[in-house]
């Protein structure tokens, strides 16, 4: 019985850390009423050296317009495979996009930065519209964009 207890305690102790390796994070992006068509948004992460790590979300499903998300495009070569399974519709002016993702804990307080590139038809492209460090202390703090994004928060 004691060995069974010890085994169970050990397996529990070993598996619990695995649960703490990711957490649900909600990314909330509210657009300004800029008076144009729906905006394409690329949400992606760079490391402490500024190198592209990966994409979190792509708002806008037609890859031929991705070149207007110019920093993301430059970093990925426009590879649509980077956003397979994390792509949704473009976001209308004045609308709020809420995405909940299961993100690795290792992303927080480790020098990573979340970027958003934005573009809308017949309007100026806006690369790096938002750049916010991923920290535990930064959760819930709204960050304003430069052109299309009124505010961005992660919780």
């Amino acid at each position: 019985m004691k060995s069974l207890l010890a085994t169970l305690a050990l397996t529990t102790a070993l598996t619990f850390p695995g649960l703490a390796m990711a957490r649900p994070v909600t990314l909330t992006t509210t657009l300004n009423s800029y008076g144009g068509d729906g905006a394409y948004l690329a949400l992606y992460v760079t490391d402490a050296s500024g190198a592209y790590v990966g994409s979190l979300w792509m708002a806008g499903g037609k890859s031929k317009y991705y070149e207007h998300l110019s920093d993301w495009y430059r970093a990925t070569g426009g590879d649509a495979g980077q956003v397979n399974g994390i792509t949704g519709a473009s976001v209308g002016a004045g609308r709020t996009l809420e995405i909940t993702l299961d993100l690795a804990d290792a992303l927080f307080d480790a020098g990573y930065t979340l970027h958003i590139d934005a573009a809308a038809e017949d309007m100026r492209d806006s690369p790096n519209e938002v750049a916010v460090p991923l920290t535990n202390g930064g959760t819930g703090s709204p960050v304003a964009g430069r052109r299309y994004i009124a505010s961005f928060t992660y919780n």
Partner: protein
Amino acid sequence: MKKILTLLVASTALTVAIGVPAWSAMHAPTDGVLRSVAALFDDSAQTMSLAQAGDDGDDDNHWQERTSRGHDDDDDCGNFEDDDDDDDDDDCRNGTRNPKPAGTVAPPQNGLFGNGAPPQVQVN
């Protein structure tokens, strides 16, 4: 004693049920968190540094100057009949260069995601 045993069995079952998929995701053959965190620094020399992009933040080129929705002249997808609508059409039938929408395939294993749970999205 029985109570403790029951609790431990239950907690083990729970953690295994949740932990195994997470563990599997972490040990995917190509990219997982462990790989990616270590590889970030190795790959950094090969990937473009966005910090050094030298972009002043604004791109003066307008959408239509480089792509035209009214006149689809790009070659990546020959089947686009109607470019006026946005996001309504699916992948190109012959090229499939558009990304797969969320929910149809798992998120990419780029090390950013935890256990591969599908993203939840809402537009208000």
